């Protein structure tokens, strides 16, 4: 049952990811990316992370993708024009990317011993209680630094919106 669920949602994530790259219109890419994120949220649930799955749907599929679709519709961009001299570009990039995927997959398959399996319910420390305690004790300093990062992002967005560049 676990394997079937994994295969279904891995296939959805992979199909949507390839669709993100292949679609010529940005809005189709954005909607495919939402599909990837929701499928990954289900995989997080299978890995025993209900809190991170909820955050994935709320923050990523909700907030960030709304920002993307808002920008695409505000700019009203059309489909990407046909590439002019992209054959060489593609011929160099695709083998590199395939070898990257192959190399990482090979290393992952070799390093992970065959006895390590993912069982649903085998990991129960992903609940909000454990998560919150770790976030506010062990990771308190990174958490506070994050607030400065967000402040910088707010100021940067406001400055960029006002200034003529």
């Amino acid at each position, binding site marked *: 049952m676990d394997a079937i669920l994994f295969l279904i949602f891995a296939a959805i994530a992979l199909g949507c990811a390839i669709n993100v790259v292949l679609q010529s219109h940005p809005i189709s890419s954005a909607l495919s990316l939402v599909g990837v994120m929701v499928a990954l949220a289900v995989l997080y649930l299978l890995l025993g992370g209900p809190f991170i799955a909820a955050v994935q749907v709320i923050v990523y599929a909700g907030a960030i993708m709304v920002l993307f679709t808002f*920008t695409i519709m505000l700019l009203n961009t059309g489909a990407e024009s046909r590439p002019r001299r992209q054959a060489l570009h593609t011929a160099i990039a695709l083998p590199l*990317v395939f070898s990257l995927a192959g190399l990482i997959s090979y290393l*992952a398959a070799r390093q992970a011993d065959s006895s*390590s399996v*993912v069982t649903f319910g085998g990991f129960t420390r992903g609940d909000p209680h454990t998560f919150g305690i770790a976030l506010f004790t062990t990771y308190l300093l990174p958490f506070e630094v994050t607030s400065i990062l967000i402040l910088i992002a707010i100021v940067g967005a406001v400055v*960029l919106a006002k200034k003529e560049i």
Partner: protein
Amino acid sequence: MLALPAQVPLSWYLILSAVLFATGAAGFLLRRNIITVFMCIELMLNAVNLSFVTFSHKLGKVDGHIFSFFVMVVAAAEAAVGLAIILTVFKNRATLEVDEISSMKL
């Protein structure tokens, strides 16, 4: 018919993460619309998050979830600033093709 294992090996999740990352990298290299390039970066961040959560399951600690939580926070800040930059670029140059925004000066 291939026999399905009763439990999913850990490496399947890692391989899925690697393939998603490579897909994002391919989009980053091949696409020319700046918004799509930006979405491919988000795709790569998501692939790395999957690795973090997988290793969290393997090690039995919640730390990987916290790392992916921070990645999400950084991605949200990055999206806000990046999309503001894209809006400014479009306002000044009226194009979103990365090939045509290659010079720093107008």
